[in-house]
């Protein structure tokens, strides 16, 4: 057995990492195609407030972040329905979450180190409780995505026609936002708040120019994401790097490789 797999903290990181890789890339494909790539980043910043609130009030931070992030996702959708522009709605919640986090930090000076592990991710601190939450909620989220795959695909491609065919487009939009909020919170233990959006945006951006069908693009995004998370964790272990950063650098390298491949194949 590989040395890396002998450590329980690495086993947990790999298990959790693979699940969030699948989740973020699947949600991400829908978001990227709907020009909502920065929603993940926005929701991650929002959940920073939830993490800080959890620490301040002595609640399990991932749980408070989950509640905070899902409530904000629904709030963003409500603002959109009230004709506030989508990016403005995200920015309003984004700054509110950050502001709340900063104020709570200033009120309590004791949890700055812990908070850093949420900002940049820390595989060493992924606990068994975290893994249980990631798997429990993560699998339910994946199941929801699988169940509503055809509806989400339709509204992503042509919202007007989907609405005319009788689909409840607003409810499905809210659901996609809520699933994104969940994916973001589950990912922050491994990659951190500041790097979550890379798992959402980059795999889809690599897959899109290479695929002819949506199904292909979805499977390719997931494969790229899972491979990058595993490669990033291996690099982090053997070269003693920050895991979140290593994962994102692998993803960025894969993106550059895709661009180079496209350029070479266009010439031939």
């Amino acid at each position, binding site marked *: 057995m590989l040395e890396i797999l002998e450590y329980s903290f690495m086993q947990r990181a790999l298990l959790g990492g693979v699940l969030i890789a699948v989740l973020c890339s699947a949600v991400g494909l829908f978001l990227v195609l709907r020009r909502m790539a920065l929603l993940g980043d926005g929701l991650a910043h929002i959940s920073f407030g939830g993490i800080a609130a959890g620490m301040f009030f002595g609640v399990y931070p991932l749980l408070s972040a989950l509640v905070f992030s899902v409530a904000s996702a629904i709030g963003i959708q409500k603002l959109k329905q009230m004709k506030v522009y989508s990016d403005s709605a995200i920015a309003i919640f984004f700054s509110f979450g950050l502001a709340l986090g900063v104020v709570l930090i200033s009120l309590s000076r004791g949890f700055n180190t812990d908070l850093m592990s949420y900002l940049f991710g820390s595989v060493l601190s992924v606990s068994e409780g975290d893994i249980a939450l990631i798997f429990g909620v993560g699998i339910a989220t994946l199941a929801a995505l699988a169940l509503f795959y055809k509806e989400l695909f339709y509204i992503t491609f*042509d919202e007007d026609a989907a609405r*005319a065919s009788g689909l409840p487009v607003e409810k499905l939009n809210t659901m996609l936002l809520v699933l994104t909020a969940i994916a973001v919170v589950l990912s922050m233990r491994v990659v951190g708040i500041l790097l979550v959006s890379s798992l959402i945006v980059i795999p889809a951006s690599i897959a899109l120019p290479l695929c002819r069908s949506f199904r292909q693009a979805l499977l390719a995004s997931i494969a790229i994401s899972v491979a990058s998370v595993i490669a990033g964790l291996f690099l982090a272990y053997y070269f003693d790097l920050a895991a979140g950063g290593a994962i994102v650098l692998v993803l960025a390298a894969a993106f550059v490789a895709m661009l180079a491949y496209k350029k070479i194949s266009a010439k031939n």
Partner: protein
Amino acid sequence: MQLKARVRRRMAEINAGTGSLERKSGCNALRIALKDATGMAEKIIEFEGVSFSYGSHHVLKGASFSVEKGDFVGMIGPNGSGKTTLVKLALGLIKPDSGAIRLFGTDIRDFSDWSKVGYVPQKATNFDQNFPASVFEVACMGRVAKAGMTKQLSGKDREAVEKALDFVGMSALKNSRIGDLSGGQQQRVFIARALAAEPELLILDEPTVGVDQKAQHDFYVLLGKLNKQGMTLVLISHDIGVVAKNASKIACVNVEVTMHDAKKGIDNALVCAYGSDLGRVPHHHDH
């Protein structure tokens, strides 16, 4: 006596479920039986005194008209005359300020059988050309609502999609990326998407914008074929020549709606939609 007998026979057919227009409600069944027996066509779309405004701007005022089963209605009118608003109202996407709208005899507020209505939106081909969707996947969207939420498409659904693609002549390209096709081919795929739901009414909003002449000709041949098979068509178009040539009725939309028989010439319809000082420039369509 003869009429009574025909109604009774038709009612028996409907109750036995053998009629093509079976309805759950006995009241509806009676109405349909009466219509069939008396030779009156079933009303597919009915507008009664429908008004709609955006703020203080009246788009439609007291619009009343009906589209009957098997009609091929061409809808014309100047830009901003309310054609697209009218379609949105008929699809239940917006609600009228006043008046009543009925689809297949049911008040639109209670209408739920949307798979009976096929819709090809304006600028349907104006989508993200890099979107990774195959022709087959796009056509499958037509079955999404019919299959039911959370349900996977069944073999029957896929069969209907294959049939629709075959009908529009796009089966050979079903694995191609939709963005790689020409405008005319994409338009056919969007028709196939609407047909996959096996609708009884097809509404097309300016479907030939950006499509070349040859593809337009093929497109209208296709619509004619559908109409002959009994499908009710509503086509919004700015191309009056094409509407006059292909449609059986012309609806002129200009805040109000008036219906004209296409066979009786389109001059009245034109005056009604565009005003009386309209000059006519003769031109010939090759198709």
